[in-house]
């Protein structure tokens, strides 16, 4: 158990126990007073009797090349202080191709990296140099996404960050 965890209140500990009891797979971390959880899902398209097309996200742990993988990160401030300068960072695995425009995060500025997460910028500001030729970066160049919260995350508040990628 970390030093930080020793400082948590009984209420925080209780909430962790409750979450663990709700779902064995819902692994949550609270050491820093933020509960961060990521899930992976796939799109399921169904057509009902009236021909209405409905796309919903369903649990998925196996994918085939060409399929869309949707990652959703939720984070909740379970401390009694506002969390400041909150930044969510997620790598894009080499087998995945980011779906242009799919990154989503209310109240965040979304930035990308093309250098393994060392530097970040808005997607239209990034360039890639190959063989001495510099060109604008494309979805296939992105190695990381980050969501920079524009305001503090108040105590008890929750945020969400999401992106999609195609399994190559």
């Amino acid at each position, binding site marked *: 158990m970390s030093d*930080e965890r020793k400082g948590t209140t009984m209420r925080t500990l209780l909430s962790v126990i409750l979450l663990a009891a709700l779902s064995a797979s819902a*692994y*949550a*971390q609270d*050491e*820093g*007073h*933020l509960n*961060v*959880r*990521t*899930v*992976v899902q796939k799109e399921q398209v169904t057509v009902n009797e009236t021909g209405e097309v409905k796309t919903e996200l369903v649990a*998925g*742990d*196996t*994918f*085939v*090349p*060409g399929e869309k*993988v949707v*990652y959703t*990160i939720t*984070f909740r401030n379970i*401390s009694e*202080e506002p*969390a*400041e*300068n*909150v*930044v*969510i*960072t*997620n*790598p894009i*695995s080499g*087998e*995945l191709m980011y779906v242009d425009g799919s990154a989503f995060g209310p109240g965040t500025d979304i930035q990308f990296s093309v250098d393994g997460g060392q530097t970040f910028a808005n997607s239209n500001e990034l360039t890639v140099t190959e063989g001495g030729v510099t060109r604008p970066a494309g979805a296939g160049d992105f190695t990381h996404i980050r969501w920079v919260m524009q305001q503090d*995350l108040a105590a008890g508040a929750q945020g969400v*960050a999401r992106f999609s990628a195609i*399994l*190559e």
Partner: protein
Amino acid sequence: MGKTRASGSAAVRRRCWHIAAGCLALLVSAEAFAVGTPVGTVIQNTATVDFDLAGTPITLQSNTTIVTVAERIDVVVTPQSPQTLVAANDTNRALLFTVTNTGNGSETFSLAIESVLAGDDFDPVPSVTPIYFDTDGSGDLTVGDQPYTAGNNDPVLAADASVDVFIVNDIPGTVVNGNTGLSQLTATSLTGTGTPGTEYAGDGDGGVDAIIGTTGGEGSDTGEYLVSDVVISVIKAQAVSDPQGGTQPEPGATITYTITVEVTSAGTATASEIRDPLPTFTSLVANSITLNAAGISDAIDADAGEYDTTGAATVVVRLGDLTQADGVQTIIFEVTID
């Protein structure tokens, strides 16, 4: 084309005969297929959160999600010889195909031939052993090629791997010149087939799920036999005359080429054309081309030929539809040695 005899550098181009589609197919057959991430690959994802709490910077990691890459089953059959020229009563005539595993895992395929198809003039008759592997890679059916027996030597192909396969038919005796007969090769995944997205739980490599891809787990394509009993004889001769009145092939000497073309069998050679590239360091004597003693201008125009210098300098003479009744066609032209 085994029945065409040619000598010298003259060549008979049978302008795709009746089937323009056969030419187009050649252009698009080299399509490449990406296979994708190998089956069984595990992709882990962990998000990181950085923030300040009461002035203290803190970094946290989320749980790690795990995605396992399932097997996608896809197969494509590509004809390598879209059209084969045959004669009535030919036996064991082969059509070559490539079977490619375009999925992302190892897969076993069964092979099948079908020769009763719509859209042709006759039904080829599958030979006693109708499917062979091009074991020696020669592109022709030879004694070293292994016969295929379903359930015995079904090809096992790794992701993106391919195998060349012949389907073999006999040609009925009733066919006539210009008839076409189609024959089809089908490769079917032994794990299963179905509409794209159909899932075979646990049937993929290493026990992962197998999912049918866009090809439905089955690939097929057809090749065509074209009956062409026409035998054409092409003979090229040359005579040199040097400026001294001798026959030495020296600079300044003139070479007179004589190409004789003759259909020596029944049938019609449609849209026959002779294209004869000039040897290097020679020049055509202007307006020296003749066909059956009638002059043909060098210009590219409406007459039966030209001196085409858009690419390699070539003498072109169009003979049109030729039959045995047309007799010997004689083309003569002169060049000088530079």
